């Protein structure tokens, strides 16, 4: 990087954007410079603060030239907050249920219950009974704190101490089926033996699956390569991550050579990435020549033969690269699987811009035959000290997979949380009239 001035590079790109010669703005909430800035920060060519200063300058310069005014710039500026240290995570109590409760409004399937000192939530599927005329295929994703989807879905929860609380629904779906979480207005007793949902009692008897946890360093790799591979693994809202800006910056900095064969592999993976998890590959070429873990990722892409079931987990990792992760639940569906996690310190924002403000984890998983899965942030909440939410993985689990290693991966190390996939008691849903 001798003689390379990263700030000048970024500012010159900023000038090109002002002159209408720069890259297109793919995400209205992000600066087009973000991609290059992230790459240059990753290789140590510029400090994060200095890069942020450049991005701020040119975001405002763009804003004063746009009809939208300063909206997006201010949104970016306001989005930043000082970072704090994470808190020590405690395992949550997760009890798989798979109980269906039917009443005149529809069928409420309680998949599992999560209890902790600060929250109580039920993972549910709600199938309302529709009148014949009103059916539609509308889909949506929303948080509901009044009437729930398809009718009044805000049941009251009661624990074995006699505490009763209201709930709110957050999730998504169509008129026929909604999936999401009912979150209690106040936490119930974490060790309650049962809960009642509008008077229907659920005994909470399930035990969590024991997991093996270890921390391991990542294999040595060129910093620029590692950055680009990580970048590919972090989901974007609008299809495959844009990496050419990063590559240009890394080449300019001398961190990679234009004819580096790894760049060819990275571009091939980028081409093969689906526009949305579960969709067919965006690329037209084959994926057999791609390196692992990507090759196995794409091999099962689009399959909808995953096992269905929920495993309650009780796994909290030691600190690795400053992160700690607690995994409390693994829920497998035909088209993919998800986990419920707490992460300390908390994550800010979403997508690649979030990666600039705070460090991110890449979520890999692999079964015992090295079939890989890639996770992306789903619904998310929390603060600076810790965040809670869902990580949704694709492709679906192999039906015969017997073991899954969940690997939250930081810059230099990763946690490996190995889960035995024992679906025996988690498959069938018991239906009971309310």
């Amino acid at each position, binding site marked *: 990087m001798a003689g390379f*001035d990263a*700030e*000048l590079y970024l*500012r*010159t790109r*900023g*000038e090109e954007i*002002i*002159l209408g*010669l720069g890259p297109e703005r793919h995400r209205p909430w992000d600066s087009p410079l973000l991609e290059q800035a992230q790459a240059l920060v990753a290789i140590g060519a510029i400090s994060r603060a200095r890069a942020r200063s450049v991005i701020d*300058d*040119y975001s*405002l*310069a763009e804003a*004063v*030239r*746009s*009809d939208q*005014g*300063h909206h997006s710039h201010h949104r970016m*500026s306001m989005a930043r907050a000082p970072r704090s240290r994470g808190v020590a995570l405690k395992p949550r109590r997760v009890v798989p249920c798979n109980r269906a409760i039917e009443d005149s409004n529809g069928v409420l399937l309680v998949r599992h219950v999560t209890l902790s000192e600060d929250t109580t939530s039920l993972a549910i599927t709600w199938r309302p009974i529709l009148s014949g005329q009103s059916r539609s295929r509308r889909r949506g994703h929303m948080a509901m704190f009044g009437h729930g989807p398809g009718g009044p879905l805000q049941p009251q929860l009661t624990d074995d101490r006699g505490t009763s609380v209201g709930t709110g629904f957050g999730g998504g779906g169509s008129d026929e089926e909604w999936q999401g979480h009912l979150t209690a207005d106040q936490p119930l007793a974490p060790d309650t033996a049962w809960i009642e949902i509008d008077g229907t009692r659920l005994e909470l008897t399930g035990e969590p699956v024991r997991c093996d946890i270890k921390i391991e360093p990542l294999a040595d790799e060129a910093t620029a390569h590692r950055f680009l591979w990580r970048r590919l693994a972090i989901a974007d809202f609008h299809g495959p991550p844009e990496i050419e800006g990063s590559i240009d910056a890394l080449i300019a900095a001398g961190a990679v050579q234009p004819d580096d064969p790894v760049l060819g592999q990275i571009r091939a993976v980028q081409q093969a990435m689906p526009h949305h998890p579960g969709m067919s590959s965006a690329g037209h070429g084959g994926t057999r020549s791609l390196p692992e873990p990507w090759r196995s990722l794409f091999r099962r892409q689009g399959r909808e033969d995953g096992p269905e079931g929920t495993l309650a987990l009780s796994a909290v990792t030691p600190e690795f690269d400053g992160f700690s992760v607690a995994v409390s639940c693994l829920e497998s569906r035909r088209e993919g699987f998800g986990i419920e996690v707490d992460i300390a310190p908390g994550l800010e924002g979403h997508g690649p811009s979030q990666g600039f403000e705070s460090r991110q984890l890449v979520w890999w998983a692999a079964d015992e035959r090295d079939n890989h899965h890639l996770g992306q942030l789903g619904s998310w909440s929390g603060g600076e000290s810790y965040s809670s939410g869902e990580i949704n993985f694709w492709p679906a689990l192999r039906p015969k997979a017997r073991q899954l290693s969940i690997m939250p991966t930081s810059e230099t190390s990763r946690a490996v949380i190995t889960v035995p996939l024992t679906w025996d008691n988690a498959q069938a849903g018991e239906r009971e009239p309310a």
Partner: protein
Amino acid sequence: MTEWWTSLAPAQASVECGGKRHRLRWENGMLQALDHGDAESERTLAALGGQSCTCLDLIEAWDHHCDDLRVLVLGSRGPTDILAVDDDVTTQLGVSRPQVMTSGVTFAGSVGRSSRSRMQRVSAMGRRSSGWTAYGPAGQLPRPPGRMSQKARAESELLALLGLGGGLPERLVATVAAAWQERLQQRTRLAARSRAQLQAALHGRVFAVIRSWLGASGPESQLKMIGEQGKRRLISENGYVRAELPFGWVVDVWAPGLATIWGRFCLSANTDDGCTWRLITVGPDLGSPSVVTLQLGI
């Protein structure tokens, strides 16, 4: 040696101030509030009455930002680069309006009358200023706590200045560029640390000119920022347009609107008397430079 503003014509804008249209005029490196005779008294009275004075707020904002490098980032690169800033400066200042302490602060000199103070402080690195003092030196007087952050307030001030119209935003860019040209010549540490920002400011303006001069689909371009005394060049090299110009080109050539003349790119503009200008120019073939002489006067 002539002053940096010699080649810049006066500029003037009007703003809504106290329910009337008032004039702000820039001339000879200074911004003046023409309709405020005793600015100090007016400012004090306004502050005591909990009111503001747009003209004086803008004078103060100008003083805050007369060496602010963000002006070069935000300001126009040329006639084709049009800003969409809200030209209602009272709206901009409404959220950022500087507030004057009404006790414990002594205002000195011809308060708020013009904006050259900070520039003169900059200049005073090499020579004594003329004793003029602006009220509320930037960042030195305490300000009442407000809901806006200092950064947001400064940003709003900038936007207000850039929305003034009447050529004042362009004069602000020239003012800032002149301050940094001087710092570069004096080889200050601050100038060295800010080199990337200065070179980018030059880059954007040079290539905005070249782009419209040679056509939007012109060849790739490269810029080398040279020292103020270096040999200025604009050549074709390996299919690239290569410019070698000092940062001072922004002040001497770009700011007065001399970047292209008679279809030629201007490398430098010099005068001994402020009336006769000697321009070194290059044609679109990027061949040898030729001199163009301009005579100002009857």
